[in-house]
């Protein structure tokens, strides 16, 4: 190795896969170059990456310069520029830009596709990746500016594959595994994620927004892609009719033939399954009953939290009248504090070509693009202008489902046209009846 890494070496032990060992192996592969690759960026890039990381481990600070603006023609995002602040000591990572590559919905791959991508990245980049970025993209970590167009050309021409998003735009949408391999999925998350990604390519590649905007698609309220916390518009599957109950299967759970929660708690003895204690008593709306060996659900009072279905997946199934809820405004703390999505559309059908869903999205965008301040997330605009403004912008009638509770302060705004006689009043008229 080019640099001594005594601190990082200590992260090679222990059972969890060691990124240090992996990076060292990769550095060696590049050094040996058995395939005779004509590397387009420094052959020792990974060695210098470990070197600069070791320096950070010594002095407790990062060694990447602030910012970096690079990209490909035609797009305003997709590449995160990065330069080392010790380029003389670590020339292999003097340029070390990240390219975001838009992942397929559900993150299913064939080895053929992944190998093609590796071939490209070994030649033109560091051979280091993130599988995957938090937003969902395949992250190609570390290349030089002159390679960006070359990589983009090969991605689009040879692989029919585009970049993902970065900057003040629609970021790369992501979804849970959905109907591909889950019995809880209330709609085809992959189909909707893909369709909206393709529909809004312009918004994704060319920043036109006040700030970033994310979509995420969860097939049910378990939220396996965390849309409710990590996307400005969150699409969470749900149903409107009754939970389907197979009483025979319920009996099998009670009889101990089926493990509760599909066996998720098998590592500890929690005693025999007790349907009363583990399901009925934990239902948040207390709308279940287990009497005479029969499970009853008062579906009108059910809030579809998924608990009973999660505990007894072989006995209870989602309803047949399916759709999704849309929640708006989730974001991390900067600037005004963290937000989770707030319920905007309680139920909407998910039917191609998804016109109803697109209409909500575009109404939200029209409002936020016009009214949003520089670097103001949708959630912050909702706080600044009020949830009522969001409802007006999306033509959605206010309903009790929109709030956790009604307001407790009485600082209520009225619109002038809601008030008889309006606001234009004459003090002299008032004085006729009320002397000074």
């Amino acid at each position, binding site marked *: 190795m080019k640099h001594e890494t005594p601190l990082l070496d200590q992260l090679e032990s222990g059972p969890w896969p060691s*990124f240090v060992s992996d990076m060292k192996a990769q550095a060696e592969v590049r050094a040996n170059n058995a395939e005779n690759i004509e590397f387009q960026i420094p052959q020792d890039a990974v060695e210098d990456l470990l070197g600069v990381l070791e320096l950070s481990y010594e002095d407790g600070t990062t060694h990447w310069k602030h910012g970096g603006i690079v990209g490909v023609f035609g797009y305003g995002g997709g590449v995160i520029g990065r330069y080392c602040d010790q380029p003389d000591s670590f020339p292999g990572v003097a340029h070390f830009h990240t390219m975001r590559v838009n992942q397929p919905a559900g993150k299913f791959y064939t080895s053929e596709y992944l190998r093609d991508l590796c071939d490209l990245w070994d030649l033109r980049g560091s051979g280091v990746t993130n599988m995957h970025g938090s937003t969902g993209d395949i992250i190609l970590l570390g290349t030089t500016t002159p390679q960006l167009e070359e990589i983009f050309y090969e991605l689009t021409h040879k692989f029919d594959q585009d970049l993902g998003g970065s900057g003040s735009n629609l970021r790369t949408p992501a979804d849970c595994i959905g109907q591909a391999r889950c019995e809880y999925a209330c709609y085809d998350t992959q189909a909707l994620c893909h369709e909206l990604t393709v529909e809004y390519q312009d918004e994704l590649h060319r920043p036109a927004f006040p700030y970033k905007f994310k979509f995420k698609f969860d097939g049910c309220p378990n939220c396996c892609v965390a849309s409710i916390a990590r996307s400005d518009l969150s699409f969470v599957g749900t149903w409107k009719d009754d939970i389907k109950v197979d009483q025979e299967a319920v009996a099998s759970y009670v009889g101990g033939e089926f493990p509760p929660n599909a066996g998720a708690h098998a590592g500890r003895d929690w005693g025999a399954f007790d349907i009363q204690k583990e399901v009925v008593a934990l239902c948040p709306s207390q709308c279940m009953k287990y009497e005479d060996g029969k499970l009853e659900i008062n579906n009108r009072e059910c809030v579809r939290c998924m608990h009973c279905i999660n505990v007894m997946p072989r006995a209870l199934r989602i309803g047949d009248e399916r759709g999704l809820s849309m929640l708006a405004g989730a974001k991390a703390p900067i600037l005004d504090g963290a937000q989770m999505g707030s319920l905007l559309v309680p139920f909407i059908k998910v039917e191609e070509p998804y016109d109803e869903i697109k209409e909500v999205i575009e109404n939200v965008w029209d409002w936020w693009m016009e009214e949003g301040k520089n670097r103001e997330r949708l959630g912050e605009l909702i706080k600044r202008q009020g949830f009522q403004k969001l409802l007006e912008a999306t033509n959605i009638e206010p309903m009790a489902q929109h709030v956790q509770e009604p307001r407790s302060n009485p600082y209520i705004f009225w619109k002038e046209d809601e008030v008889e006689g309006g606001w234009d009043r004459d003090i002299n008229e008032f004085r006729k009846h009320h002397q000074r």
Partner: protein
Amino acid sequence: MAFISSGYNPDKPMEDRITDIGPKKFDQFYPPVIAKNKGKWLYHEILEPGVLVHVAEGGDEVYTVRCGGARLMSTGLIREICEIADKHCEGHVRFTTRNNIEFMVDDKSKLDPLKKDLEGRKFAGGSFKFPVGGTGAGITNIVHTQGWIHCHTPATDASGTVKATMDEVFGDFQNMRLPAPLRISMACCLNMCGAVHCSDIAILGYHRKPPMLDHEYLDKLCEIPLAIAACPTGAIKPSKVEVNGEQMKSVAVNNDRCMFCGNCYTMCPSLPLADKEGDGIVLMAGGKVSNRISMPKFSKVVVAFLPNETPRWPTMTDTIKKMIEAYSSDANKYERLGEWAERIGWERFFEKCELPFTHHLIDDFRDPAYYTWRQSTQFKF
């Protein structure tokens, strides 16, 4: 190294350019058993830690083996994943939303050879390449960020803190003994790229010193109004300074109002704040995103500061383990960490986890802070 053109012509950059084609369509990558049974799954079961079976309406089954991944990975490792996929899974593989790797087979007989193969692969240093686990009521992969590997605003490292933590909790990656799944996440600054604000336990990089002012360059490199607007507490104002006898536009930072979020540095390269002794770790706890039983919750700050102890952060991992053990021995079945803390009361949470409570943990950010104090005589001694 000789330059190899891809075919791109830099003299005519817009010629032959393909744009706006988006991602590959997902269904080209489905394994046959997934394509055939999509939308027709009846139920699933966790056969053992890391192994799932899904059963479809027609009786088809798909077995999934989930294994850990470091997220930061080389093409060499991806090629090895491909080799495994070719050998056992007809060339198919997928990644989860927590960056684990899933291999799927359509017959139970293919399961054991796959598992044995995965468990037998180790890195030169001895760590597992593909440890099987991450299912059910245990601890799965840690969602994390860039850290010192690639970002300019971190207060700690991501890959290192995560490796150190996963080594310590590895037993729970391969077991399902907890009351409920326990999600750990990590972010190297409070931009919180990822899931720190909504996880059972969260590791957060934090600064404790106000930015340094690079007056000589500030007006040349920064949009001053953007740096001012970047501050959540209004600690930054425009100012004029004299550097080497020259009047310059810059900013002034009211250090007493600065809480070291680093957002002004994000906007302005002349306001760096990273510092070896100042920077470290905040621990948060009690967040969740699912709607199961209780509504989604934010995580709360439970440890205001732990130092950056490279390379293994022992105080941090010890504190995390203490929380996990207290939760594991006390919480009810199905109860997430945040539900447990709220049920027993946060005063009991601190007692049971043996965590000191300091003034840093009391909210003082604007109006909503009031709602986090205790407007009640209901408390436990």
